[in-house]
């Protein structure tokens, strides 16, 4: 168990953290800043849940960039097993080594040595010297329950036991970020070890701010319209509601086409919907009524005063 107030981030303040987020153009509310700060200070993993596209993975990337450290990413999938997550012996190399010695291994040598070890993300995150890396365990809900159990050991002790080699422990524990899309319930044991953060899709103001920072070449009024449209789309019962990434795609598309000052017209909207809607059924659902509603929403959004959106 790691104890508080002794880690490398004991002196980090909320303002410094916010600054680093700002440097990376990551728009974060107070709640996110406070929670991340606590995770860093307490040395606890951070479990982030939320709809796809709410910016969960991005947070880990921003942390790595902001602290100028390595990002070790473990993408989870069904059937993910220990040898893909922790380590694996390089069997081919071992076989060749054994055969090169003509059926035996010379004295004092073994094929269970570091040179035959393939490090997988979790071991890699513990092994690195210097600055602790950011370990991103992405979409943990896609992996099986068995894999969760495997994580428990790593997350509470930050060490991995390799029977043939010994125990590898992290000198400084990595910053761990775990994301989940809530497609299944995670075990209480895993949740107990983490701080919990739920990221909801951004508000209109926050989304406009994100677009402003990430697609600076886009006219602010058009950006507002754009966010009005995606906010309105999220109210529809879509199979895949647009996330922030889709909004940004839409924004970049508009900026590329160069349909600037006069706003988003019907034709542009219809053509560009492919950047926002990623499902044939959803695209088929867009009829004239919905287009009207979207354009209305865009007009209203444009009319909204552009106050300073950062809170």
């Amino acid at each position, binding site marked *: *168990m790691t*104890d*508080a*107030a002794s880690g490398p981030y004991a002196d980090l*303040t*909320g303002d410094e953290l916010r600054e680093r987020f700002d440097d990376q153009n990551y728009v974060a509310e*107070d*709640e996110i800043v*406070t*929670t991340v*700060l*606590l*995770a860093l*200070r*307490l040395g*606890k993993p951070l479990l982030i*849940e*939320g709809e796809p596209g709410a910016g969960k993975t991005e947070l880990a990337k921003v942390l790595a960039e902001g602290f100028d450290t390595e990002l070790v990413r473990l993408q989870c*999938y*069904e*059937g993910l*097993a220990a*040898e893909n997550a922790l380590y694996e*012996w390089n*069997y*081919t190399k*071992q*076989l060749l080594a*054994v*055969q090169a*010695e003509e*059926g*035996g291994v010379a004295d004092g040598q073994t094929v269970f040595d570091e040179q035959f070890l393939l490090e997988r993300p979790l071991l890699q995150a513990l092994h690195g010297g210097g600055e602790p890396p950011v370990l991103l365990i992405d979409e943990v*809900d*896609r992996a*099986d329950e068995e894999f969760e159990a495997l994580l428990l050991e790593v997350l509470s002790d930050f060490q991995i036991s390799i029977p043939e080699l010994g125990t590898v422990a992290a000198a400084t524990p990595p910053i761990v970020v775990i994301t989940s899309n*809530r*497609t*299944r*319930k995670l075990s*209480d044991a895993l*949740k*107990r070890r983490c*701080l*919990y*953060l*739920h990221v909801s899709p951004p508000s209109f103001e926050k989304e406009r701010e994100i677009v402003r920072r990430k697609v600076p070449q886009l006219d602010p009024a058009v950006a507002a319209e754009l966010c009005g449209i995606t906010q309105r789309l999220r109210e529809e*019962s*879509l*199979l*895949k509601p647009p996330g922030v990434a889709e909004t940004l795609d839409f924004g970049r598309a508009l900026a590329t086409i160069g349909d600037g000052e006069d706003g988003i017209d019907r034709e542009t909207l219809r053509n560009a919907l492919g950047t926002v809607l990623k499902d044939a*059924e959803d695209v*088929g*659902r867009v009829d004239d009524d919905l287009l009207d509603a979207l354009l209305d929403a865009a007009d209203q959004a444009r009319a909204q005063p552009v106050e300073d959106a950062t809170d």
Partner: protein
Amino acid sequence: MGSENPGDGTGGDGSGDRSFDAKSTMLDSVIGFVRKLRANGVIVPADAAIVATRALTELDAADRESVRAALKATLVTRQRDIDRFEELFDAFWHDLRLDERDVPEVLEHLADAANPPEPAEADDGLPSRSRARDDSSGDETSEDATVEAQEDGFQRVTADAFGAGGEAGESIEIAQYSPTGARSRVERVPSRGDYGLDGSVVRMTTALSTMTGRRRTRTTNGRFVDGRRALRRSFGTGGVVASLPESEPEESVVRGTVLVDVSQSVLDTIERGFLLEWLRLLALHWRSLRVFFFDTDVREVTDAFDRRTVGSVSEALASAEAAWGGGTQIGSAFADVRRSYPGAVDRRTAVLVVSDGLERGELDALSESAARLSRRAALFLWLNPLATHPNYEPTARGMAAALPAVDGLFAFADADDVAEIARQLDRHDRRRLGYQFDPRRPTTSATGDAG
């Protein structure tokens, strides 16, 4: 309170005891809050109060929003608890403010106590706060929660003290039956005996169990070479690989949730004995199966299908006072399942809906909740007794609204239909599921797929 206990194991330096005093006082009020959360059905991990207290001492500022964020991050573990947390947090904060001592001040003292420089101050700022004020539920729980939590057994002890209580909050299995309207009780359903369903259900189960997954299992004639076992074995033969072990995809377990529309219109078109027998066989073969009956509301009837014959199933349903034959509100029924039985549908469950899609409620609600089901479930099949007609088209309003979200729409009235569903699932092609690929349809557009 035993706050004089020295050497708690976390300290080691001079400041350890002092900050610990402060923590244990704060722990009191946090535990009061945790207990309130639990009483309101929020799942709070066993050692969360301690982590929360530690988090509070790490805060920069003791303002309301920071405290809220810290407690939320440490006490809440599920999205659906967030609203309840927000409500109770307001009350918690309000209560604290009514106390003589100003809370932010207490927290600032805490922050000071965590950073040692001024030893004398933290002590008198923090005598044990009367904990009577913010708990209405008596005293005994507060005892088991805190007292032992002082020593180095911290987590372990509190975990014991909390363990059972924390889990017990999640009792969601209580279904309520309110036979109103034109429903009638489930009486003994006549059974023709053998419906010939067994083979089809087994085939369906196998098809579903191999649908996803990369996990491999050892076998004698698999599709993959198992390098790991090849090496281990070669040690016995001095590094020479004598034979290649093989592996194949492992069958995973099948979990499912069946939502059965028991409105009058469905019961008129489907033989009840057949329906119950099919559900009974699913319950028998699948790793886990939950069955819900819905018309204008939803009730879980899973337990009734743990029987050996259709007769005893219908008896069990009757004794559970399950009713059927009312009107239909499919959309609100789906939403009810999501709200009241949140564990029933997840990424690894196949959801089967038996319904004619004749919706009496709001169409928007139906398409919305069907889309949600589809996003959440591994597979979403709709079994429609009306689709048995050779020229059936899903034009009923409700059916049309739900159709975009459905992975496959099938006819469902007899054993042949079940066999057809099993056959299509067995092809493992999710883009070609549904009544339109049924070779029994006269002029089907999908003629080339007789597999």
